[in-house]
C-alpha cells in the first residue's frame, strides 16, 4: 500500500513538473562562462540551495509564508546546466500561479544571483524579465564639465590675446607719434638722410659698394 502511495506521489510530482507544463519556468545557468576556473560543479546540493532560495522568495509573498523547500520541484536537469521548476501549494496537488512566482523571483533576483555568484545574464529565468538597473546619471553630465573647462580656457586665452593686441597697437601709436616728433625736430635742424643729419656723415671716408654698380649694369637698357 505504501509503495502504491509513494508511486502515486512521484507520478503526480512528475506530472506537475514537466517541460512546458503550466506555471513551470525554465532556468539556465552559465557557471563556467561566469566564473571560469573558479566554477563549481552543479550537483544535487546546489539544486537543494536553489530550491531553498525559491522557497525563500515565495515566503516573502503575502499568503505564502508557509512555503517549504519540498514544495519546489525541479526536473529535467541537463548538462547545460538547465532545468525546469514549479512551486506547489501545501497540498502538493496544484502549482502556484505563474504571476505570483514571477513577481516573487523578480523581487529577490539580486539575492538569488548573489548566492550563486552569477548575474542576470548568467542565471537566466526564461520568461521572467529582469528589472534593469536605473541609469547611473550623475547630476551634471561629464561632457558639460569638460566643455566648461575647455570653453573657459578658450575665452581667457582669447581675451588675453585681444588685450595684448590692443596694448601693442597703443604702443605702436605712441611710438609712431614719438618718431613724428623727432622727425619734426630734425627737419628744423637741416638736411636729412635717413633721419640722420648729413653734416655728421663723413662722406670722404666712405666706400662705394661695388655690388650696386654691377646690379645697374645687369639691367637691360630701355
Amino acid at each position: 500500500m505504501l509503495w502504491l502511495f509513494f508511486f502515486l506521489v512521484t507520478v503526480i510530482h512528475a506530472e506537475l513538473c514537466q517541460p512546458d507544463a503550466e506555471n513551470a519556468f525554465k532556468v539556465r545557468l552559465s557557471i563556467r562562462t561566469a566564473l571560469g576556473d573558479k566554477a563549481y560543479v552543479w550537483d544535487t546540493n546546489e539544486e537543494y540551495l536553489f530550491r531553498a532560495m525559491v522557497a525563500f522568495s515565495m515566503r516573502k509573498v503575502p499568503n505564502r509564508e508557509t512555503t517549504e523547500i519540498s514544495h519546489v520541484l525541479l526536473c529535467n536537469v541537463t548538462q547545460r546546466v538547465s532545468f525546469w521548476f514549479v512551486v506547489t501549494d501545501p497540498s502538493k496537488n496544484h502549482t502556484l500561479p505563474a504571476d505570483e512566482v514571477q513577481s516573487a523571483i523578480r523581487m529577490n533576483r539580486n539575492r538569488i544571483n548573489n548566492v550563486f555568484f552569477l548575474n542576470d545574464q548568467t542565471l537566466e529565468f526564461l520568461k521572467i524579465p529582469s528589472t534593469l538597473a536605473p541609469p547611473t546619471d550623475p547630476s551634471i553630465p561629464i561632457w558639460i564639465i569638460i566643455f566648461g573647462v575647455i570653453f573657459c580656457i578658450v575665452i581667457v586665452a582669447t581675451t588675453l590675446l585681444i588685450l595684448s593686441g590692443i596694448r601693442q597697437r597703443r604702443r605702436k601709436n605712441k611710438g609712431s607719434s614719438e618718431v613724428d616728433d623727432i622727425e619734426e625736430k630734425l627737419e628744423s635742424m637741416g638736411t636729412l638722410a635717413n633721419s640722420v643729419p648729413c653734416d655728421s656723415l663723413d662722406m670722404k671716408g666712405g666706400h662705394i659698394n661695388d655690388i650696386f654698380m654691377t646690379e645697374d649694369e645687369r639691367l637691360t637698357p630701355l
Partner: protein
Amino acid sequence: MAQALGPDLLVDEGADGRPQWDNKFQYLLSCLGFAVGLGNIWRFPYLCQTYGGGAFLIPYLVALVFEGIPLFHIELAIGQRLRRGSIGVWTAISPYLGGVGLGCFTVSFLVSLYYNTVLVWVLWYFLNSFQQPLPWGTCPPNLNRTGLVEECQSSGTVSYFWYRQTLNITADIDHSGAVQWRLLLCQAASWAVVYLCVSRGIETTGKAIYFTALFPYLVLTIFLVRGLTLPGATEGLIYLFTPDVQILLNPRVWLDAATQIFFSLSLAFGGHIAFASYNPPRNNCRRDAVIIALVNSLTSLYASITIFAIMGFKATNDHGQCLDRNILSLINEFNLPELSISRDNYPAALLHLNTTQPGRIAQLPLRACSLQDFLDQGTSGPGLAFIVFTEAVLHMPGAPVWAVLFFGMLFSLGLSSMFGNMESVITPLLDMGIFPQWVPKEVITGLACLVCFLSATCFTLQSGSYWLEVFDNFAASLNLVIFAFLEVVGVVYVYGMKRFCADIEWMTGRWPNLYWRVSWWVVSPLLLLGILLSYIVLLTHRSPSYKAWNPQYELFPSQEEKIYPHWVQAVCLLLSFLPLLWLPASALAQLLARRRRENTQLDTALKLQDSSGC
C-alpha cells in the same frame, strides 16, 4: 623685356607691410596642415580597400605626379610672386579673371561652414570620451525599465548613440526639427577655438600649427603601435595591401585616384595662395610643393596602415562574436555542456548536429560567419569615424584613453585644415580693402567667424547631417575642379608660360624643366577636363537621392533611400552654380567699368580739345 613685371612690383620682404612667417618650418607646416585633413584618414583607406589594395597606389602615384604636384606648384608660385590672396592674384593676372578669385572665396566660405560642423561632431564625441564605460557602449533602458530602448536594440548601441543621442536625426530632410542645443554649444566652442587661432592671421596660426599639425602624427604612431599588437591586425593589413591588378582596367579607379589627389591637397581653395603670399619673394616654392605633396601622400599611406590594423582587429572581433552567438544558440537548444563547442570545432559540431537533427537546426537563427565578409564592410567618411572606429575602440582595453586620443587627433587634423580655409576667406577680405584701415585685424577675423558661426547653425538642426551631405556633394566638388582648370589655363595661357617660367627662375633660381612645362601645358588641363566631364556625367546619371535614418522603416536598421524634394534639388543646383556665376559677373563688371573709363577719357580729351581751341 627680360623682367616679368616692372621693378616697382618687385617688393622686398616686409617692406610692403605684409605679415611674414616666423620661419620656413611654420610655412611648411601650415600648408601641410591644410592639405592633411580628415580625408586622409577616412577617404584614402576606403579607396585603397575598394580598389584592389596595393594596386590602387599606381593610379594614385600617377595622379600625384601629373596632376597634384604641378597644380600645387602653380598655386604656391603665383601666391608667392604676386603676394596677394586669391582675389588679388587673379585680378593681377587679368582683370577679367577676377571672378575665379571670387568663386574660390565663395567656395571656401561654404566649405568652412560644413567642415566645422564635422569638427563640432568630433568635439562632442571628444567631450563624451572622458568616462568609463563609454556612453556609446550601452543602450539606455526604456521608460518602464523592462528592457532596452527598441531603436537601440535593433540598430546597435554605436549607431543609436550617433543617430539619436548626437544628431537626434529626423526621418527625412523636409522635417528640420529643432536646433540641438548640445551641438550648438559645441559649435560655439569650436568656432571660439578657430577664432582664437586665426584672430591675428598667420601670427597666431603660425604658433598654433606647431601643435595641430604635429599632434596627429604622434597619435597615429601610438595607434599604429597599439593596433599592430592587437589580434587580427595582420589579417586587416594583408587584406588592405593584397593587390588586385585587374581592377586597374576599370576607369572609375583612375577617376577616383585623380579626384582623391585633387581634394587631398586642398587645391583651388585659395588657401595655399594665401599662405605662399606671406613668403619672402625668393623662396624655393618648387621644392616646397614637392615636399608637401609627398608628405601628404605618405601621411595618407601611414594613416591607412593604422586604420586597417584596427579594422582587422574589429573584423576578427566581430567574427568571433558571430561564432560565439551561433555556438550559444546550439548549446542552448541541445542543452550541451558549456564550452563544449569551441570556435575551432564549431563547423564540425554544426555538421554533426545538422545530419542528426536537421529540423531543429533549421529553426535556429544561425548566421553565416565569414571573416572576409566582416573585412569587406568598408566605410568612408563620418561613418568610419563615428560608427565603425568607435565600436572598435570599445573592445580595446582602456577604451576611454583611445577614444580621447582618436577624437583629439581628428579635431587637430580638422582644425589645421580650418586654418587654411579661414585664411582663404580672410586674406582676400583684407586684400580687397573693404574695411577701413583703422579697423583692427582681430575685429575683421571676429566678424568673419561670427558670420560663419551664425550661418552654420542650420547644421545643428535635426536634419543637419542630411544638409551636410548636400553641401559636401554639391558645393565643393564641381566648382573646385572648374576653378582649378581655370587656374591652370589662366596661368599658362593668359599670364603666359614664358612669363611664369621667368618668374619661377627669379624666385627659385632655375628655369622649370620639361616635366613641369609639359604637365602645365597639356597633362594637367587634360586630366582636369577628364575629371570635370566624368563628374558632370555622374551627376546627371545619379538620381538625387539620399539615405535616411527612419526607425519606422520596415528594413530598419538599413537606411531608407529617399528622393530629395524639389526645393532641396533647387538648393543643390544653386550651390553648384552660384560660385561659378562670379566668373561672368566679374568679367562683365570689368567690361562695363572699362567702357565707362574709356568714355570719360574720351570726354576729357574732347573737352581739352574744345578748350584749347582749333
